[in-house]
């Protein structure tokens, strides 16, 4: 697992890259800044395995996205994603010391790493911190809930379209570095079926892809192909961003 640890050269800049950190009261941010560290990830890097102790929480920056996967006897299934609108290691502030899920970095990028005890201490004493973080948790719950329906009802094509749109909302890049095996794993479908679904989208001019990169070509039409779960999850995402804009301090 290749991870490069870099001291933040511009801590202000990094913190503004995650919406929750940017929304925290400045006093809280200042107290936490000595505990913060910027970490870089490659695609596929594992932050938590099921059962791992939550010692650190991670606030993704705008260039990356993490996947939450539920492990079953047979396989892992993606149940949600977290980008710069949120944080991973949620059990850490809910009073649990353990991650029930696997968390992987989807797309290479960076995040702010913070010791969970430091965050817990601010969380416990400041209602504003509770409000900001718990609002995110409630939106995560909504996303996972929608995924429960989507995974049951919608086709591979609809889910693939949805997934690509959700990723693009979070990661500001024209092209996403994504291998088919990875996508197939996220969507819990067999790789051949994933490739067929991707081919269909490509032939309709909605996406462009090579073995390792995907680009959304026609966003509007891709939204039409996607199930409405995309729009619903995007609504939850926007809710969190908007509420943080309201509470943001300088």
């Amino acid at each position, binding site marked *: 697992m290749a991870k490069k640890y870099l001291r933040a050269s511009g801590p202000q800049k990094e913190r503004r890259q995650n919406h929750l950190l940017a929304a925290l009261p400045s006093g809280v941010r200042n107290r936490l800044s000595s505990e913060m560290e910027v970490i870089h990830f490659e695609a596929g890097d594992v932050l938590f*395995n*099921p*059962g791992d102790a939550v010692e650190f929480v991670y606030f993704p920056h705008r260039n990356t996205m993490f996947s*939450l996967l*539920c*492990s*079953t*006897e*047979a*396989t*892992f*299934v993606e*149940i*949600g994603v977290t980008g710069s609108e949120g944080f991973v290691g*949620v*059990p850490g502030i*809910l*009073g*649990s010391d*353990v991650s*029930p*899920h*696997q968390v992987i970095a989807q797309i290479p990028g960076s995040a702010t790493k913070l010791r969970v005890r430091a965050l817990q201490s601010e*969380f*416990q004493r400041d*209602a504003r911190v*509770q*409000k900001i973080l*718990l*609002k995110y*948790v*409630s*939106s*995560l*719950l*909504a996303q*996972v*809930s*929608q*995924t*429960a*329906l989507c*995974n*049951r*009802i919608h086709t591979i094509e609809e889910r693939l379209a949805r997934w690509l749109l959700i990723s693009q909302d979070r990661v500001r890049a024209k092209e996403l570095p994504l291998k088919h095996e990875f996508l197939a794993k996220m969507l*819990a479908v067999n790789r051949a079926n994933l490739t067929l679904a991707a081919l269909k989208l490509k032939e309709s001019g909605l996406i462009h892809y090579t073995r390792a990169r995907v680009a959304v070509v026609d966003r509007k039409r891709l939204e039409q192909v996607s199930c*409405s779960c995309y729009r619903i999850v995007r609504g*939850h995402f926007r*809710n969190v961003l908007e*509420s943080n804009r309201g509470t943001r301090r300088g």
Partner: protein
Amino acid sequence: MKPPRTRSYSNRTLLCLPKEELRRLEPQLTPVKLNVHETLIGAGDKAKHAFFVEEGICSLVVEMKDGITVEVGIIGKESVVGAPAVLGADHSPNRAFIQIAGSGYRISLQHLRAQAERSSELKSCLVQGLLAMTSQSAACNRIHDLPERLARWLLTCRDRLDYDRMPLTHEFLAIMLGTRRTTVTLAAGALQKAGLIAYSRGHVTIENRADLENTACECYATVRDEYRRLGLLDGKPASRRPDV
């Protein structure tokens, strides 16, 4: 003014609270009857109340515009209906409606939020179980088959009731499982034929619990153990699951 008579509660989340906190909350708890099919919180609603179930079962579903519904969770006396709103959600992501009639306590969100702000225990109780159940459902719905999912939900219901004969129609089960009634009838028929359940006059009784647990996907035990670990269900959780 006479102090209120001390109530005895069945709701596990209430029982998790320290005595003084429960006493502070008590005047805000209004006893209510929970009638079958009654919607406690509509999807997209800005909820005003939360509910502590004492008896009965509440179903949490995600609904699509075309009417397709899939259950993402079940809440009974172990938990609270309306947790997302307490945490700050503006609108309810799910519809919460009564699947099996019973009773409980209603509390205004304002009061519950005020209480939750003071109590980190309450906050944890409110969401950990629900997050675990919903997450597991998201995975389960993707990879497990109807018979094992049906077994899972029947066991999950039974864990939250104090009696055996559960009033559950096939129509209801179809909504829960996101499938057609005819499909449920077939699956339920197979479980009945194998002697695992008995279905008569709109009621399901579990006849062979051990074998029904074996038929269920592992999602049943995973969520049950998490609820046990949280103290919301009776019994000892299995030892921590090994890394996959």
